[in-house]
């Protein structure tokens, strides 16, 4: 009891000392930085230009952030992230800081005095583009159209991410990558990026596009001729299906009328498939068309050849029976000669056994 009390007192003492010292160091540093940031924000923008209309929004937010910076009550976080000399008491300070951050997070995004506004702006953009892509991808999950549907969202996201990797914080000389991607264990940004990229790669979307030359360090996507051609054919088939869909009483009409476009589509798909891997849009659209064709309209023509197959099968399966019977009757058996072994005959020397 006594001991724990002492320990507690010790802790509290330490923390207060820390806070005091941090106030001295931290604030002085902080002041320098904020002034820097205000000055250099224009400069940082030059290297990066995403969508029109962003500019105004960002600057207005920035103003807001800078006011927040000076808000009192941020001391703990300052201590926590500035120098790292308080390792022993990280427990205490962490809880405190997370407590703080939850309060702030519920209202606005807390501007961290140690992340330069430029990088922070990129982070915000990244979040927006990621959410746009996720939203889009879910909307395009069924029927599957991720590649053609979310192409812009994907390229947007990748552009912002590239920017984070490339650009530098003009004041500190640290790159945004270092500040945003490599400072903690959770690595939210990196994992989100991985998720989006894996979704894109699992859909083999690259195959849908002609990837143009690099412009400003980013790839230029456009739907490839094959894709366009396929889409055109698929639309033709679906249109045909739709036209003949109404007369439910007379299903074979659909089969007759749409056979040509359907076969063309099927052949195109097969030929495309042989040359390369296809992106998921095409595969899925083909699958669903096929499904409609064979299950809904039951247009599939299959001829069985049971008699011939059965006859051959039975004939062939009987062969071994004849073979084995024949071999048993005809073949003379192998005869093995037994060798006589030379063994010691104890009767000659029965005495040995006594």
């Amino acid at each position, binding site marked *: 009891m006594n001991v724990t009390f002492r320990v507690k007192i010790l802790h509290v003492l330490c923390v207060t000392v820390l806070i005091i010292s941090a106030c001295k160091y931290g604030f002085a540093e902080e002041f320098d930085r904020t002034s820097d940031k205000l000055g250099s924000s224009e400069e940082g923008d030059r290297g990066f230009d995403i969508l029109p209309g962003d500019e105004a929004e960002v600057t207005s937010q920035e103003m807001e952030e800078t006011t927040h910076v000076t808000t009192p009550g941020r001391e703990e976080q300052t201590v926590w992230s500035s120098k790292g000399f308080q390792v022993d008491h990280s427990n205490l300070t962490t809880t405190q800081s997370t407590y703080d951050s939850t309060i702030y997070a519920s209202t606005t995004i807390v501007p961290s005095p140690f992340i330069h506004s430029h990088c922070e702006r990129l982070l915000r953009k990244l979040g927006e583009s990621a959410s746009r892509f996720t939203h889009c991808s879910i909307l395009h999950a069924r029927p599957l159209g991720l590649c053609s549907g979310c192409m812009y969202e994907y390229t947007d996201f990748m552009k912002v991410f590239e920017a984070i990797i490339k650009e530098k914080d003009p004041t500190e000389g640290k790159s945004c990558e270092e500040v945003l991607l490599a400072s903690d264990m959770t690595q939210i940004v990196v994992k989100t990026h991985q998720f989006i990229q894996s979704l894109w790669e699992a859909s083999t979307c690259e195959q849908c596009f002609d990837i143009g030359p690099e412009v400003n360090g980013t790839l230029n996507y456009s739907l490839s001729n094959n894709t366009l051609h396929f889409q055109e054919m698929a639309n033709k088939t679906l249109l045909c299906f739709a036209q003949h869909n109404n007369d439910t009483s007379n299903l074979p009409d659909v089969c007759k009328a749409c056979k040509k476009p359907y076969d063309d589509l099927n052949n195109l798909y097969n030929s495309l498939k042989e040359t390369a891997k296809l992106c998921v849009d095409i595969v899925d659209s083909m699958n669903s068309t096929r499904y409609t064709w064979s299950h809904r309209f039951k247009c599939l023509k299959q001829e069985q*050849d049971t008699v011939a197959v059965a006859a051959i099968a039975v004939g062939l399966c009987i062969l071994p029976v004849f073979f084995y019977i024949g071999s048993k009757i005809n073949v003379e058996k192998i005869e*093995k000669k037994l*060798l006589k072994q030379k063994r010691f005959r104890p009767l000659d020397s029965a005495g040995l056994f006594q």
Partner: protein
Amino acid sequence: MSSASNGRPTDGGVDRTADEKTPLLYNRRCRQESIGIDNTIQFDPEEPDYDSVIYSPGGSPEKESPQEKATEDTAKLLSAKYEGLDYDLVENSLFVKEAAANNKKLIRININRWVVMLMIGILTALVGVVIDILVHQLAGLKYSLLKSWIDSCVEEGCLAIPFALWVAIDALFVCFAAILVAYGEPVAAGSGIPQIKCYLNGVKVPHVVRIKTLISKVIGVVFSVAGGLAVGKEGPMIHSGAVIAAGVSQGMSTTFKRDLKIFKYFRTDTEKRDFVSGGAAAGVSAAFGAPVGGVLFSLEEGASFWNQALTWRIFFCSVTTLFTLNIVLSVYFGRPGELAYPGLLNFGRFTGVSYFWYEIPLFLLMGVAGGLSGALFNFVNHKICIFRMKYVYKPFMQVVEAMMVAIVTATLAFVSIYVSRDCKPLGQDPSEKPLQFFCSDGEYSTMATMMFQTPEQSVKSLFHDPPNSYNIVTLSVFCVIYFILACWTYGLSVPSGLFIPSLLCGAGWGRLFGIGVSHLVPNIAWSAPGIYALMGAAAQLGGVVRMTISLTVILMEATGNVSYGLPLMLVLLIAKWVGDIFNEGLYDIHIRLMSVPILGWEPPATSTTISARQVMSHPVTTLQQVEKVGRIVEALKEPHSNHNGFPVVDVPDETDQVTSGRFRGLILRSHLLVLIKRKMFLERGQTGAIRRNLEMKDFREAYPRFPSIHELNISPEEMECSIDLRPYMNPAPYTVSEDASLHRVFRLFRALGLRHLVVVNKDNLVMGIVTRKDLARYRLVSLRSLDLEELQMSH
């Protein structure tokens, strides 16, 4: 003698106990109905000592035979054509001289051992790659041709054409493979593991490590796998590795009459066998991507001659193989340097799927099932093989039989696909060539994915396809068909691995088991059916081949997941125990069918009561220290004493009927042949006609195919000359007292890898000689009983 032979066989020969002449052996419980002890154990001087009784399996012997019932199969015989390997060094004076001179060379020889192992590793991997690529190409060609026909014929109703085409292609491929084996090199048939097991045990199986065998094996296996038989290419890989090892280490090929004049000091049975064990390990490593499993395989099969340095070299060899195979295959599949192709058969990665502790009892249950079905497999295959040996032994009939099996295999595959209506939607294509057959557009037939690809790929599909990929009826039908086919196929005269068919069959019922469990008790979390497929595969394979530690490690390495070690081990353990109740492992059954005098791990349990006197061959042909050429030639020509070692004695006492002179040393047949060929006669020595004395390398030069005595030309005058055997004989070979027990003799033999063991009495007079066959003829009747049986010798 005759009174006993007519007597009803009773246990322990009770009706013979009155006979005072009964030797000790009859106090043991010996099975008499299957052996002619009376005819063989007693030597009757009135009869010529070499005689033959016509032995006809299944029928009555032509000559009056004392046997009441002739033995059913060759498993009850030992064949005289198998000889032992000289693992023991001959320490004669030449050897000692050479060893003294070679002191400095020892380091180089040691380095060369590593070099040879490296070469074995690389070459084995390359052979593996060749097999893999050829199978891949041939099967790909075949399946795409058939697929295009089937696709168009489904619409037009001409399915009989692709059917006939399929049957014809398979029959043709298999015919080619069978011709290679039946007319080329019959020893290349089957998986080759039994033969390698014999070789590592110390038996020289004729032709087993020849280059011709390798060629037949490699090309044969490619065609039998591409021909759709229920076979794998893994077992043959092990044999191939062994042949490569034997070839490389010798630096020459007698078949091609090429001698590279390198590695001459490795031209002895001892060195060759060490390298062969490395080659076998490399083969396992190439086949399954399991280097440690390979080392353990060699250890398990040839363990009696083992040392730490050799183990380390073998491991080096098998890792080299793994790495080389990986590199070359990654280049072939267009991803150089990726190292994702560890073996010919890899089970793929089981990532993220694990098992739960409460599933272990279920795995044990599967072990029991595997043991039972493995025992059934072995039983049926044994019967089929006996039939084959009796009636289907002519080469052309063997070829026709192989074609029959191929035809029926293709027929069953086609019909089952034709009948099956189990369709699944084409997602991201599950197999390389999904076959639509009677399924709707955009779907594939699941039966076709199993039948319409090489067995390796089917195994992978069963392990990894998501839970709902297979329907129960499809799987059951597939399992049953495959079990029958595999059972029928093994033992045909085509190179055929046993691993894949067993794994496939087991994976089938294992998956069924998994599906069943999750259906019956849906509330509990079960692991993926792929895990059950893996355990079923292990159980089936374990039940068939009954290997223990090496198989566990091989499977563990092939899955790349150590956490499966425990369930795999348990499953294999149970499967072996259950299977052993009924019969032996399939490899052992085949070794018995080949009548090979193999020595087991342990002497038969009741062997302590049998003495060396009963075991040994008795009047033994001996030579004197300075012997007449005529007498040596006579001894060598004597057809029944085709011993490879002759005791060298002082002048024997003519009156003594029991012993044959005081023991001085042992000389090998091969050395005698070289001596006569080089005409190292004393008389020529005196006249100075001999330019130089023989050295060890002169003996090694003739290795491994020494001339036959009949090929040597010796004039009548030369017959009168004499040879001094003293410098060439081994003056201090192992001997054993006549009172030693069979148990003791066996242990000595097995542990030292002996070929001859001279039996002497207390005065060091030669009583007899014990060879491998003398020991191997004592065998337990079955794994369950303690009864000994005694095997007959035949040609």
